[in-house]
Structures are given as structure tokens and as C-alpha cells.
């Protein structure tokens, strides 16, 4: 029976340590304070059980009963706090009053137990006092009340709170279970020697509660079980050290305890580390998952945007087709009356409707000339709008640029001959690299520029030069004509549809809309055209640059 004495002492010390540990863990929380007080009271209550085995005096009985009255009271207070139960001040005063009453009665008088004759480990010999029954009713009533609060709260609680209460309940089950075993079941089998363990086993309850309150790895049952196992074995080893019959055995046991403690510490630490790693991995996985989801969202958005884009392009194409159709129809409608005017005028002049007198001839010729001008204008306008609408994609072919220029020069020769001008084409002896271009459109564009030069030159002539440089074809159309002012140059290629002022200027220079068309076509080939002139009367030079391979061809 002697070996139980140190066990009880250890239980006392652990109770005190638990109280201390929980308190310093968080001094500002009420629950921690209440629990610490409860642990200390419990330790004090268990203490006489130890003393009874060491120094048997009747005082320990009173002492035990007295503090025993405070144990359920102090426990109830933290249980209520833990379960977040409402309790009125009056109820607290009443319960505390009862507890303190029984404490005083037990501790100072012989009203509960009297005439104690002998005290021994786990019991005493004495008589029941007048308050004996009421004392036990109070104790049992308090215990049931605590259990009731715990169980009902457990059923209602959720999440971490439920888990906390379940820890307390597990502790309570261990406690009650131990008490039932050592105080009832074993004595029934004739074994009485473990009875002194009844009150120290309250340690179970306090231990689990401490876990619940401090919430140290509350969710990690593996850690808690390991800790419990390690502590349990350490405890047994400690007891063995204390009760070892020989000194060398004590030393040996002590060394074993230290080794085991170190091993146990390392074991718990490794498990904690593993859990931390697992948590870290889970968190990383979570982050990755979220990133992936985010990426997916972006991808979906992108796809939607692309779809929208495609829709828009389709819509634009449709619109483009409609506009194209509109222009063609307009073309038809504008040209039909002009055809009639042109037709009748020519017939009148041909004498289809009889000879016309000389006086009428001149006005009719003017009429015819104006009609022709109008037709040309309408054609040009329609060409431009067709280009501007973007209806026509360039029809790309390999083009030998000097051949194109030769054709233009050939076609314009009659004009220059008539005006007594020269028209020269200067090209390198080696063939130039071919370019990708729409031959028809490009020819029209260049034709306009050369034609323009001839139109405004009265003396001298026009020189067309062509060469290749880097990945570009450079063309110069140089005339010895009237030249241009800076303002005129600026107005040359500008979109004179946009601003009336510029339109006026464009017409003022008399350059017409042919150059605008040329500019549009050359731009569509990703080329450049610009003009330079030393000033009025000093001739002009038009520069054209065309890439060999336009990267993107659209008008």
C-alpha cells in the first residue's frame, strides 16, 4: 500500500502545475483563472489523502471534507463559464454560500464526522455527524448539476465549443470510471488497497479540461494520446523510482525516467512537427488550388472575351458586306443617269437627232466635258468609299515593280508628248526584288502620282526613279512643274472629307482626290508616300516607300 503515497503526492503536484500552467497561458481570460483556482482547491483536497499515509492525525479528515465541499463549487464555476451558461448572481451567492457553509462546518467543527479515532491511507474510523447526510446530498447534487450542464451544453454546442466540452466529458468519464473501479468494483472483489486513488483520479478531469481550455492541439487527438501515454509511462517510472527498495535501483529508475522523458519529448515534438508540415502542405495545396481556380476564372474570362471579339469581327464583316453592297448599288444608281447624260450628249453631237448648228456645238461640248468630269469624280469617290469601308482586301501577287512603272510610263507617254515634256524611268540594271502587292491597285496609285506630276508641269518633264533599299522599294517621282507651298503639301494627302477647310485647300491646289486614293492604297500596302517641294515654281518630288513583304494587309 505504501507505493500509493507517492502517486498521490504526484497527483497533487500535477494538479498544482496544471492550474499554474493554464493560468499563465492566458491570464486575462476568466475561464483560465477559474480553472486554476479549481485545480488548486482540488490539489489541496487531494493533499490530506497523501498526508494520511505519512502522518496519521484526525485533522486530515476534517481538512479533506472541508476542501471537498469547495471542489464541486469551484468546478461548477468554470463549467458554467466554459459552457457559456447564464447564471444569476443570486444563484452564485446561494451555491457559494452552501459550499462555504459546508467548508466551515467540516473544517472547524465535528458536525459531519466526529470522534475520529484512526486515520489511514484511504479511510478513517469515526462517527457520522448531524450534517453528514446533508453534506453528501450537497456534494452529489452539485456533481449531477455539473454533469447536467456539461451534457446539455454539449448537445447544443457546435464546432470548437462542442469539442471543448467533449474533452471535459471524456475527462469526467475517466474520473468517474476510476472512482467506480477503485471504490466500488474492486472492493466488491475484496481488493481495498486502491481506494486512496479515488480523489487523485480527479486529475483526469482536470487534465482534459486543461487541454480544452488552452486549446493546445485540441483537434489533434494523436498528439493528445501520445502526450497522455508518455506522461502516464513517465508517471509510472517516477513512482517506481520513489518506491524502489534499493538505492541503485532508484538511480537506475531515475536514469530510465530521464531517458524516457527525453525520448517522449522528442516523440511528441516529431509528431507536432509532422502535423505542422501536414498543415503547411495542406495550406500550400489550398493556395495552389485557389490559384488554379483563379487561373481557370481568368481563362474563362479570356475565352468569353475572345468569343465576344469573334462575334464583333463577324458583326463587322456583316456590316462591311452590307456597306459594300450599298456602295455597289449606289454606284449603279449614280452611274445610270450619268450614262444617259453621256449617251444623249454624244448622240446629239454625233448628229443622231439631226445636224446641230455651230452656235450650239460649243455649249454642248462643254456639257459633255462636264459630264465626263462628273463621271470621273463619281468613279473616284466610289473607289475611295469602297476602300474606306474596308470592303476590299488587297488581292496580293508577286509584283515586279519596275515592270509596273514601265507600263505606267508607256501609257502616259502620249500625254507628255502632247505637252512636249519628257517622261523618264530610271531603274537599276539588275532586276529589283519582287514585292507582294495588289498590282491593279498599286498601279492605279502610282499612275495617279505620275499623272499628277505631268498635269502640273508645263516645261521640262517628269522623272521616275526606282531602287531597293533594305527590305523596301523606294520610288521617286520628280517633276519640274509649278511646285507647292508647305500648306499645299500638308493638304495633299489629308482626308479632306473630314474637314471642310482642308477640302477647300485640296481643291484649291487642284490636285483632286486621286492623290488621296493613292495614299490610301499605299498605306494599305503598309507603305508611305509624301511630297517635297522647294516652293512655288521649283518643282515637286513625290516619295513612295513600299515594304517587300507587308506583315498585315488590310485596307
Amino acid at each position, binding site marked *: 500500500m505504501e507505493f500509493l503515497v507517492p502517486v498521490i503526492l504526484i497527483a497533487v503536484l500535477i494538479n498544482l502545475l496544471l492550474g499554474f500552467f493554464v493560468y499563465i497561458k492566458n491570464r486575462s481570460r476568466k475561464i483560465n483563472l477559474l480553472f486554476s483556482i479549481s485545480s488548486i482547491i482540488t490539489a489541496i483536497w487531494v493533499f490530506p489523502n497523501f498526508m494520511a499515509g505519512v502522518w496519521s492525525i484526525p485533522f486530515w479528515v476534517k481538512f479533506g471534507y472541508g476542501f471537498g465541499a469547495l471542489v464541486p463549487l469551484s468546478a461548477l464555476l468554470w463549467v458554467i463559464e466554459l459552457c457559456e451558461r447564464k447564471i444569476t448572481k443570486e444563484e452564485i451567492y446561494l451555491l457559494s454560500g452552501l459550499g462555504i457553509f459546508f467548508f466551515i462546518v467540516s473544517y472547524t467543527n465535528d458536525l459531519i464526522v466526529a470522534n475520529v479515532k484512526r486515520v489511514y491511507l484511504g479511510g478513517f474510523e469515526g462517527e457520522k455527524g448531524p450534517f453528514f447526510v446533508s453534506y453528501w446530498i450537497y456534494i452529489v447534487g452539485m456533481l449531477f448539476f455539473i454533469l447536467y450542464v456539461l451534457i446539455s451544453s454539449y448537445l447544443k454546442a457546435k464546432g470548437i465549443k462542442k469539442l471543448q466540452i467533449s474533452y471535459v466529458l471524456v475527462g469526467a468519464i475517466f474520473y468517474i470510471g476510476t472512482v467506480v473501479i477503485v471504490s466500488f468494483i474492486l472492493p466488491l472483489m475484496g481488493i481495498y488497497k486502491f481506494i486512496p486513488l479515488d480523489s487523485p483520479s480527479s486529475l483526469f478531469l482536470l487534465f482534459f479540461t486543461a487541454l480544452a481550455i488552452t486549446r493546445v492541439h485540441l483537434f489533434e487527438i494523436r498528439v493528445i494520446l501520445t502526450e497522455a501515454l508518455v506522461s502516464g509511462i513517465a508517471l509510472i517510472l517516477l513512482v517506481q523510482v520513489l518506491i524502489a527498495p534499493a538505492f541503485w535501483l532508484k538511480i537506475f529508475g531515475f536514469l530510465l525516467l530521464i531517458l524516457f522523458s527525453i525520448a517522449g519529448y522528442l516523440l511528441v515534438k516529431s509528431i507536432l512537427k509532422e502535423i505542422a508540415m501536414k498543415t503547411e502542405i495542406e495550406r500550400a495545396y489550398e493556395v495552389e488550388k485557389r490559384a488554379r481556380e483563379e487561373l481557370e476564372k481568368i481563362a474563362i474570362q479570356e475565352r468569353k472575351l475572345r468569343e465576344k471579339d469573334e462575334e464583333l469581327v463577324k458583326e463587322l464583316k456583316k456590316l462591311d458586306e452590307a456597306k459594300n453592297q450599298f456602295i455597289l*448599288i449606289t454606284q449603279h444608281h449614280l452611274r445610270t443617269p450619268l*450614262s444617259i447624260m453621256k449617251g444623249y450628249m454624244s448622240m446629239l453631237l454625233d448628229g443622231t437627232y439631226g445636224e446641230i448648228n455651230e452656235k450650239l456645238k460649243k455649249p454642248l461640248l462643254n456639257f459633255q466635258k462636264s459630264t465626263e468630269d462628273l463621271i470621273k469624280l463619281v468613279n473616284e469617290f466610289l473607289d475611295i468609299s469602297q476602300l474606306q469601308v474596308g470592303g476590299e482586301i488587297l488581292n496580293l501577287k508577286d509584283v515586279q515593280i519596275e515592270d509596273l512603272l514601265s507600263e505606267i510610263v508607256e501609257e502616259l507617254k502620249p500625254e507628255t508628248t502632247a505637252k512636249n515634256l519628257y517622261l523618264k524611268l530610271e531603274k537599276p540594271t539588275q532586276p529589283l526584288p519582287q514585292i507582294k502587292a495588289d498590282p491593279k491597285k498599286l498601279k492605279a496609285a502610282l499612275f495617279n502620282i505620275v499623272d499628277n506630276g505631268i498635269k502640273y508641269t508645263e516645261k521640262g518633264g517628269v522623272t521616275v526613279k526606282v531602287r531597293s533599299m533594305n527590305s523596301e522599294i523606294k520610288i521617286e517621282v520628280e517633276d519640274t512643274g509649278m511646285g507647292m507651298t508647305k500648306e499645299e503639301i500638308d493638304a495633299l494627302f489629308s482626308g479632306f472629307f473630314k474637314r471642310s477647310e482642308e477640302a477647300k485647300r485640296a481643291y484649291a491646289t487642284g490636285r483632286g482626290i486621286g492623290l488621296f486614293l493613292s495614299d490610301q492604297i499605299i498605306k494599305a500596302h503598309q507603305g508611305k508616300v509624301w511630297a517635297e517641294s522647294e516652293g512655288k515654281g521649283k518643282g515637286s518630288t513625290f516619295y513612295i516607300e513600299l515594304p517587300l513583304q507587308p506583315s498585315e494587309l488590310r485596307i
Partner: protein
Amino acid sequence: MKKKIWLIEDEEMLIEMYTDVFKLAKLEIETTRTGYESLEKLKRIREGKERKPDLILLDLLLPDINGIQILEEIRKYEETRNLPVFILSNYAAPEMKEMGIELKAEKFLLRIDYTPSQLVKIIKERLGEK
């Protein structure tokens, strides 16, 4: 016998103008103004109720159907398959031109480019009358 020109055209003033100039050129002229009218005439020609024209001048934009559809109909039947057809129109959609060439239209004349007498000259050249 006078050579017969079939003019498919809906614009009244053009019809008048071409009639004047063709008469002067001693060409017989017959006119239809709609696709429907033209197809009816084509049917009569097929059935031998009417003399075949020596040349057809075809406009592309008509009130009911387009000229290409008439040309298809002309090319479909043995009796009319080999009739010479000039497209004469101010409607210059490139795909129409392509289709016209595919259906063996001999010329694609942009109306505005030709005076009536120039047109007569081209027709007479084709018909072998100079």
C-alpha cells in the same frame, strides 16, 4: 434581214436612248424590262415561237431577279445555249463579273464607259457587220 438585239433593261430612258441609236444603225431591237418578262420570252424562243436574237444585252440589276439568273437560264437550254451575251451594266460587283465569265458572257461592259455609238460599234464588230 436585220440583226436582232435583245436588250434586257429596266431603265426606260436607257431603252429609249438605245432604241434610237440602234434604229439608226439598222438593228432590230426587242426589250424586256423584268426578269419574269425575260424568262417568258426565253421560253417562247425555246419553243420556236419567236426568232432567236443575234445578241443579248443584259443588265445585272433588274426589279425582280438579277441578270446572272437570266444568263443561267439562257445557258441551261440547248436552244439558247450558244447565244452571244454582253453584260451591259453599271453594277460592277466583282463576283458578278466572275459569274458572268463562268457563264460565258462574251463581254462585261461598264455602261458608263461607252457612248451608245461606241456600243453599236462593238456590237457590229461582233455581228460581223462593219
